[in-house]
């Protein structure tokens, strides 16, 4: 039996629009595996860990598995790879260094930039965010060459 409870998180996140809810069983399924990129967005999003992947039938022999657990609160992602012959490998990586989303600014709260700044070549937070003393680099137009050689 599937662990899927039909919550629809996978449907909501799938970049390819191929996770759908079956109208009879009210559970999720992949309606178009040949447009799947194996990006695992659905697997990572599933609160029930109900989605198992098998490699594409045209080149991946049976018996393997690649499983994942993404934990936003812990800021980690954990992988378990099982080979067809039973060997296993485990990996864990960070996914963020900050409490989720907190350090991302709301630009509308910053001071309104001047008309002069709007005319300049600088982007938001520049030149400071470039971490260089010399300001935004530019180039002398009179040196431009047209044609083949450089």
């Amino acid at each position, binding site marked *: 039996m599937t662990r899927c409870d039909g919550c629809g998180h996978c449907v909501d*996140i*799938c*970049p390819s*629009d191929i996770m759908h809810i079956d109208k009879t069983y009210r559970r999720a399924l992949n*309606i178009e*595996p*040949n*447009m*799947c*990129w*194996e*990006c695992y*967005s659905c697997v990572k999003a599933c609160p029930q860990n109900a989605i198992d992947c098998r*490699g*594409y*039938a*045209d*080149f*991946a*022999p*049976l018996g*393997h598995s*690649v499983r*994942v657990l993404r934990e936003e609160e812990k800021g980690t*992602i954990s992988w378990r*790879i099982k*080979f*067809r012959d039973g*060997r296993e490998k485990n*990996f864990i*990586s*960070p996914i*963020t*260094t*900050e409490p989720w*989303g907190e*350090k*991302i600014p*709301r*630009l*509308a709260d*910053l001071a*309104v930039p001047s008309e002069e700044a709007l005319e300049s*070549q600088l*982007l*938001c*937070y520049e030149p400071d965010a*470039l*971490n260089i003393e010399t300001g935004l*680099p530019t*180039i002398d*137009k009179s*040196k*431009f*060459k*047209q*044609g*083949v*050689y*450089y």
Partner: protein
Amino acid sequence: MGFKTVFEDCDILVVGGGMGGTGAAYESRYWGRDLKIVVAEKANIDRSGAVAQGLYAINCYMGMQWDENQPEDHVRYARNDLMGMVREDLAYDMARHVDSTVHKFEEWGLPLMRDPETGRYQREGKWQIMIHGESYKPIVAEAARKSADKIYNRIMVTHLLMDESRPNRVGGAVGFNVRTGDFHVFRAKAVIVGAGGASHIFKPRSVGEGMGRTWYAPWSSASAYALPILVGAKMTQMENRIVLCRFKDGYGPVGAYFLHLKTYTQNAYGEEYESKWYDHTKNLVGEYIDHHPTPTCLRNHAFIEEMKAGRGPIHMVTKEAFQDPHKEVIGWENFLGMTVGQAVVWASQDIDPKYTNPELTTSEPYVMGSHATCSGAWASGPEDVSPDEYYWGYNRMMTVEGLFGAGDALGGTAHAFSSGSFTEGRLAAKAAVRFVRDHGKDDIKISDKQFEDLKSTVYKPLENYEIGRNEIVGGTVSPSYILPIHGLQRLEKIMDEYAGGISNNYMTNEPMLLRGMHLLKTLQEDLDHIGAEDLHQLQRAWELRHRAIASECVVQHTLFREETRWPGYYYRGDFMKLDDENWHALTLSRRDPESGEWTMEKAPVYHIVD
């Protein structure tokens, strides 16, 4: 069809919420404090675009703060890799800003690895820095969400709208909601196209269930090109498709393996093969083979020739590097962070690179403007570093007024990658804000007829299916319609066989291109009879339309350039040599929106650094 129409009037509309689009939404808010900024995204911005599954490296970071590279170095690198031709002004402009983008990503929580000895970002190669980027896209999406007034997920934008009171001025876009079916009319003073490049225009190596295992995401449906092309924007370098040398079947990336893990390639008999093809390649491209680093296409060329000579498969020698446990972890995490499918292939085939040297392959071609090639729309550069010919008032504005681009959409800016695409989005956004300031009072006229006509066009595939379905008992064979998958497979077959795909070892010529063009034209006619069973299939129908239009453009460009500029990406059998005398130039195309006729021209290459 009784779908309701939903109107949204805004100042800046961002089409596509990938790296370019999120950068555009973010920066628009800073400069356009009182402007209404709206994003229309085909999927969900948390996991959309090419970075949906994450990345293990940021491939474009100068490191100006440590004097690692300067923007001039980036220009030299990008033009060398593309055999002498990029838009150097655009490349320089992106490069001088990209570090500020990356520094912000780190502040927001993206884990950038540090070199334990120097404390600097951990370099993978000269340009790349290593990251734990599983959540790269959700982090960046949050920045866009905090900036935009409204983000519409699940809207497939099908067409741009044009102002009827002046020629050549964009006025918004239309599309449909893939969930509700609602028709959305966005009226905007400026539009930034951040949509995706083109996968699945050439037949992929994987077939059947695995056809989605393309190198670039299957949802990159060439909207970046089709939307501007359909309103008559000029395009550039659309012949400059890319073929990737990657791990076989999973298309797992090789960058970290070559650069950081120091693995190398050999043929089936354990021989180094690239140097064997030196004289042969020199005969085709002259001194370009002596450039450092060797342009990617020329390394592909040696790979393809070695395979043709019967000494495949080509292997990546990993057994030595993977004895180091640290390198082994990097090798695996590299895939898990951005191409899970490769780990799946190796697990299923019992390939442990510690004990087996895995096979490599060359992929089917892709057309895109943000990775290592530069197909896309012809756009203005920035005032201070662009030659006069390349500057028409607003940075990153296409040849249609008020229409801007970033990421895959923008032509001439190779090697931008994720960070560079976000940066381009920022540049386009600032310019769009200035455009709205200067022209925001213009009264844009979009008649009901304009969007009502588009509405009936957009939903036609549903109607075709509903009517045609009555003629058959069941199944997929109908005398009056074809399904989106049928059309897609025909498109891929035409492009593969006539325009330089895998089955002909990337070879084409004038007679083949002309034949391909004819077949594409009949495909276009058949696409009026495409049948969509539901809204999901309607999305597929419009993705196919976009791919078909972009493919036409690719064939026109490939025919126009009478030389083989990038052996290893494609070959013109009738002009096998690189021809700097006649073709050290950028190619431009324009499709007349009324007649559908194409015109081609050359534009000069300006070298802005030595």
